[in-house]
C-alpha cells in the first residue's frame, strides 16, 4: 500500500460512506459498524493531518482527470484542521449516542437508534467530502448531502416541534443551496471552470464575480445561521436529540462557514476591498449581541445553548475585514479557525452535558437545575468547563481563540471589535452563570422531589462528554500545534496549488 | 433565425406565465398540475437548447416523478384532513405493528 498522503484522501470519505450503507443494510450491526468506521476515519484523519504538517498539502485527482476536467480533493491546513475537528467530535459523539439512543424495548426508540447510525455516517462522510473538495459544484453536492442528513437527524426526535424545526431547516438549507448553486452558475458563466484554484487564478473584480459572491455568501450564511438569518437554528438545535444538537452546532454549521472562508480567501479575494467583508463583520456583531441577549432569556438549557451558538457564530465572521485585508497575514485566519475549533469542542461538550441532564432529570428547564453540582457532579463539571471555554476565560480553547482575535483586531486598529469580543465574553458569562449559578445551590438531603429524580448517567455518555470538556481546556496549551497545521499550504493560490 | 427567436420568446412567455400561475393558483391541485406542465415546457425548452439528456431527465424526474409525488402528497393530505374532521385523533404512530415487533 502506498504511503503517499494523497492516496488516502478518498478513503477518508469512502469509509464513513460505506459504513452508512452497511449500517442501513444491517441495522443490528449498525453500532459496531459505525464505531469501527469512526475509529478508522479518526485515525486516518489524524495521521493525515500529521503527515500534512510534515509533507505539505496533498492533492488527489479523482478518476485520474485533473482539474479543470475532473475533480480534485485537496488537503491543506484549513481543511485538515476541520477534518481533525470532525474526527475528534465525531468519535466522541459516536460513543455518546450509543448510550443516549439506547432503545431498551421501546420500538420508537429502536427506530431512532437504527436510523441514527446511517444518517450520522452519511453526515460524517459529507463533512469530510466537503472539506476535501476543491470544486465548487462538487461542494454543492456535498452541501446537499450534509443538509439532508442534518435535517433527517434533526427530525429523528419525532415530536411536532422538532418536525417543524426540521421543516424550517430543510427550507433554509435547500434555498441556501440554490442560492449557492446560482452563484456557481455565475462563476461558470464568467470563468468557465469550477475548480477553486483555477477560479482564483482567473478571478478579477467584475460584476459577475460580485453577483456570484453575493449569491453564494447569502446562501451559505443562511446555512450557517448568521444573524439575521439565524431564525431557524435555535428551534432545530434545541429540540433535536442531544447528540444531534451537538453535531449540528459543532460541525454542520461549520461546513458552510468553511466554504465562505475558502471562497473569500481564494476566489472572491479581488472583492476584499468592497464593503462585503465589513457587512459580514457587522452581521457578526449583531449575532454576538442578539444571540447573547436571547440566550439570557431562554427558559430551557438546550435553547440557551442553541442561542449561544447563534452568538458564537457571529464571532466567526467578525474578523472578515481583517482576514481579507491581507491574506498573507494569517493571524486573523488563525484566530477565526481557533475559534471554530474551540467553539465546536465546547459546544459539543455543552450539548452532550445537556443531553445527559435531560436523560437523567427528564427536564432541562433552568428552574429544574438547582443543586446540579451535587446531583450530577461529572456532568456539571463538564458543562462548566465547556462554559468556561464559551466565556473564553483562561485557560481554555475559547480564550486561546479570543486572545488571537483581540490581538488581530487591536493590531489592525479595529477597536470596535475589541470591545465586542470582550463584551461578548461578559455576556456569555451572564448566560452561562444562569446555569452554573443555581448548580451550586444546596439541595435538601432527603425527600426533595428534585433529588429523587436524579438517576445515574451511564459511562458511555459521561466519558465522551467529559473528554470533550477537558479537551476544551487542554487545547489552550496546544495552540501552536493547531496553528502549525493551519499553516499548511493556506491559501492554495499563494502556496502552490495546481 | 428570427423565426427561431420568435418561437423562443413564445416558449419563454408561456413558461413564465405557467410558472406564475402554478405558484399563485388558489387551488393547490391546480398549482401542482400547472407545475407539471411547467416541467414539460422546460424540457421542451431544453430540447430546443440542444440538451436532450437534460430534457429527458427533466421530463421524467422533474415533471413526472415530482408531479407524482406532489399529487400523492396532496391526496394523503386530503385524506388526513377528512380524518381530522371525522375523528380528532391523529394516525396511530406510537403503536407498532406486529411485523415491526418481529423486525426489532
Amino acid at each position: 500500500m502506498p504511503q503517499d498522503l494523497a492516496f488516502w484522501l478518498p478513503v477518508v470519505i469512502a469509509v464513513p460512506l460505506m459504513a452508512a450503507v452497511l449500517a442501513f443494510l444491517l441495522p443490528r450491526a449498525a453500532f459496531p459498524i459505525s464505531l469501527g468506521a469512526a475509529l478508522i476515519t479518526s485515525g486516518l484523519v489524524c495521521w493525515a493531518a500529521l503527515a500534512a504538517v510534515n509533507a505539505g498539502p496533498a492533492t488527489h485527482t479523482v478518476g485520474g482527470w485533473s482539474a479543470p476536467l475532473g475533480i480534485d480533493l485537496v488537503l491543506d491546513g484549513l481543511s485538515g484542521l476541520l477534518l481533525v475537528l470532525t474526527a475528534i467530535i465525531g468519535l466522541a459523539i459516536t460513543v455518546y449516542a450509543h448510550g443516549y439512543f439506547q432503545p431498551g424495548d421501546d420500538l420508537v426508540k429502536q427506530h431512532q437508534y437504527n436510523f441514527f447510525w446511517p444518517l450520522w455516517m452519511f453526515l460524517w462522510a459529507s463533512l469530510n467530502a466537503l472539506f476535501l473538495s476543491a470544486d465548487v459544484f462538487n461542494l454543492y453536492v456535498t452541501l446537499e448531502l450534509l443538509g439532508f442528513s442534518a435535517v433527517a437527524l434533526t427530525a429523528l426526535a419525532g415530536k411536532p416541534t422538532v418536525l417543524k424545526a426540521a421543516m424550517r431547516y430543510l427550507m433554509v438549507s435547500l434555498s441556501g443551496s440554490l442560492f449557492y448553486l446560482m452563484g456557481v452558475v455565475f462563476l461558470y458563466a464568467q470563468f468557465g471552470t469550477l475548480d477553486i484554484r483555477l477560479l482564483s487564478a482567473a478571478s478579477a473584480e467584475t460584476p459577475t464575480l460580485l453577483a456570484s459572491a453575493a449569491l453564494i455568501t447569502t446562501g451559505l450564511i443562511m446555512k450557517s445561521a448568521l444573524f439575521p438569518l439565524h431564525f431557524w437554528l435555535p428551534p432545530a438545535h434545541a429540540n433535536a436529540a442531544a447528540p444531534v444538537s451537538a453535531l449540528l452546532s459543532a460541525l454542520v454549521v461549520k461546513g458552510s462557514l468553511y466554504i465562505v472562508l475558502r471562497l473569500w480567501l481564494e476566489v472572491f479575494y479581488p472583492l476584499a476591498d468592497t464593503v462585503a467583508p465589513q457587512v459580514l463583520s457587522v452581521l457578526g456583531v449583531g449575532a454576538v449581541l442578539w444571540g447573547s441577549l436571547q440566550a439570557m432569556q431562554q427558559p430551557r438549557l438546550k435553547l440557551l445553548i442553541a442561542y449561544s451558538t447563534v452568538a458564537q457564530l457571529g464571532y466567526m465572521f467578525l474578523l472578515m475585514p481583517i482576514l481579507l485585508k491581507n491574506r498573507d497575514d494569517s493571524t486573523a485566519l488563525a484566530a477565526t479557525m481557533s475559534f471554530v475549533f474551540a467553539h465546536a469542542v465546547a459546544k459539543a461538550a455543552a450539548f452532550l452535558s445537556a443531553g445527559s441532564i435531560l436523560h437523567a432529570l427528564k427536564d432541562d428547564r433552568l428552574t429544574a437545575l438547582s443543586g446540579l453540582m451535587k446531583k450530577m457532579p461529572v456532568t456539571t463539571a463538564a458543562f462548566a468547563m465547556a462554559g468556561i471555554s464559551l466565556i473564553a476565560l483562561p485557560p481554555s480553547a475559547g480564550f486561546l481563540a479570543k486572545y488571537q482575535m483581540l490581538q488581530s483586531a487591536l493590531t489592525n486598529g479595529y477597536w470596535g471589535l475589541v470591545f465586542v469580543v470582550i463584551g461578548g465574553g461578559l455576556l456569555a458569562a451572564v448566560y452561562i452563570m444562569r446555569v452554573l449559578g443555581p448548580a451550586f445551590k444546596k439541595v435538601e438531603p432527603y425527600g426533595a422531589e428534585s433529588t429523587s429524580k436524579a438517576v445515574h448517567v451511564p459511562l458511555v455518555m459521561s466519558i465522551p462528554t467529559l473528554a470533550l470538556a477537558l479537551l476544551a481546556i487542554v487545547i489552550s496549551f496546544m495552540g501552536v500545534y493547531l496553528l502549525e497545521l493551519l499553516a499548511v499550504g493556506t491559501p492554495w493560490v499563494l502556496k502552490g496549488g495546481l | 433565425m428570427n423565426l427561431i427567436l420568435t418561437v423562443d420568446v413564445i416558449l419563454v412567455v408561456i413558461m413564465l406565465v405557467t410558472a406564475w400561475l402554478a405558484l399563485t393558483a388558489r387551488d393547490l391541485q391546480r398549482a401542482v398540475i400547472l407545475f407539471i406542465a411547467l416541467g414539460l415546457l422546460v424540457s421542451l425548452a431544453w430540447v430546443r437548447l440542444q440538451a436532450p439528456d437534460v430534457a429527458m431527465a427533466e421530463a421524467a424526474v422533474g415533471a413526472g416523478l415530482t408531479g407524482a409525488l406532489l399529487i400523492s402528497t396532496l391526496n394523503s393530505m386530503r385524506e388526513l384532513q377528512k380524518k381530522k374532521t371525522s375523528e380528532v385523533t391523529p394516525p396511530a404512530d406510537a403503536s407498532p405493528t406486529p411485523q415491526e415487533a418481529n423486525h426489532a
Partner: protein
Amino acid sequence: MTWENSLPLLIVLTSLVPGVVIFFLKESTVGVRTTLNMFGAVAKLVLIAVMINGLLNETTYETRLPFLPGIDFVLRADTLSILFCILSAVLWLVTTIYAIGYLEHSPNRSRFFGFFSLCVSSTMGIALAGNLMTFLIFYELLTICTYPLVVHKGDEKALRGGRTYLIYTLVGGGALLLAVIWMYAIAGPIEFRDGGAIDAIVEGARGPLTVIYFLFIAAFGVKSAIVPLHGWLPRAMVAPAPVSALLHAVAVVKAGAFGIVRVTYDLFGIDVANDLGVLTPLMIATSLTIIVGSVLAIFQDDIKKRLAYSTVSQVSYIALGVALFGPLGSIGGIMHLVHQGVMKITLFFGAGSFDETLGVTKISQMDGIGRRMPLTMAAFTVGALGMIGVPPTAGFITKWFLGTGAIEANSHWVIGVLILSSLLNAGYFLPILYRAWFKPQKGDWPSEHDFGGRFETFWMLLLPPVVTGVFSILLGLFANLPVGLLYWVRLIVLREYEL
C-alpha cells in the same frame, strides 16, 4: 526537562494534582484527603526551600512551554515570586489544617478541598508567572476556582454573594485582558524583568502606556478591592471562614495587590512608571481607599464584615508602598504583602473559631470572650495590634517604612494618611479588644459547641491562629535577621531600582 526547568511547574503541580485527585474522592475518605493535602503542602514548601537556596546561588529556574507563536507559557522564579510563593505555601498549610477542623462533618468537603487546592495552585502560578500571558491565565483561573468556594454554603445569600463576586472579577478580567493584549500589541512579546521590561518610552506610546497602566490598576483594583471597586469583598463574606481567610490573606485580594507590584516594577519598571506620572494618581487612590475602608469598618457590627473593610484598607498599603517612588516605600509595600497576609489570616481564623465554637458572629456578642477562649483571643489581639501598627508587631515595620518612604518621595501628606488610618484602625479594633478582655460575659453564648478535649476549642481550630499570631510577632521582632524578611525584600527592591 531538567530539574531547573521543571521546578516552577512542580511547585504549581504539588497543589494542582492533589486538588484534581481530591475531586474524585468520596466524601468519607477523610484520611486520604488529608494526607494528600498535607503531602502537597509540605512538598511545596520543600521545593520552595530548594528554590530559595538555588536563587541565592544565582540559579535560574524557568519552565517554558510554547503557547502561541511569539508567546510562551513561562513560569519563572525570582526574588519577588519566591516571597509570594512562600507566603502562600505556609498559609495554605495552616489554612488547610484549619479548614479540616472547621468543616468537619459538613457536606461537599471533597469539592471544597479540591477547589481550595486549585486556588492555591493558581496563586502559585500568579506568583511564578514569567510574563503577562501566564499571569493572566492563572489570574482568571483563580477567579474560576474561588467562585465555588464563595458559594460553598449554597444558600440564596451565598449565591448572591458569588454572583456579585463574579460580576466584579469578570469585568476586571476583561480590563486585564484588554490591557495585556494592548501591551503585547505595542511592546511585543515582553516578559517580566527586574527593573521593568520597558526600557524607554517610545515617542507616541506615552498615551497608550498610561491608559494601559490604568487598565492594569483597574483590573487589579477589583481583586485588591481599591475603592470604589471593593463592593464584592464584604458580600463575599458569606463564604466559610477558611475561605475568607485565604481570600483576604493569600489568594484573591493578594493576587490583585501582587499584580500591581509585578506590573509596576517588572513590566513598566518603576522609573518608567514614575516618568509616565501614573504613580501619583495611584497614591491618591490608595490613600483614599485606606481612609474609606477604615471608616466603613467602624460601622460594621458583624466581625467578618469589619475585618473585610479592614482588608480593603490594609491591602492598599501595599499599592501605596509601590506608588511611593523610592526604595524605602517599596520595602514597606512589599513587606506588607507578607505582613498583612499573616496578620489578617490570624484575625479571620479567630473570627471563624468564635463562630464555630460559640456561635459568635457579631462584635456586640464578644463581651468576655477573652476569658472563654484566651489563646484564640490572644492571637486575635496580636493580629489587631499589628493592623494598628503597634510595635513590635509586623504591622509596625510596614508603617515605619511607608512613613520614611513618604518622606523620601517628598509626599509628606501620606504621613498624615498613615496616622489617620492608624487612628481609625485603633478606632475599630480597640473596642473589640476591650469588650473581649475587659467586659464581663453577657448571658449564654449564641450556640456553644463542645469539642471535648483539653483546649478551649478543637485543636485544629486553635493551632493555626496561634501559629500565625506568633508569626506576626516574630516577623516584627526579627525583621532584620540575615535571612529575614527585610533582607529578602531589600534584595528585591535593590534589583527593581537597579541599585
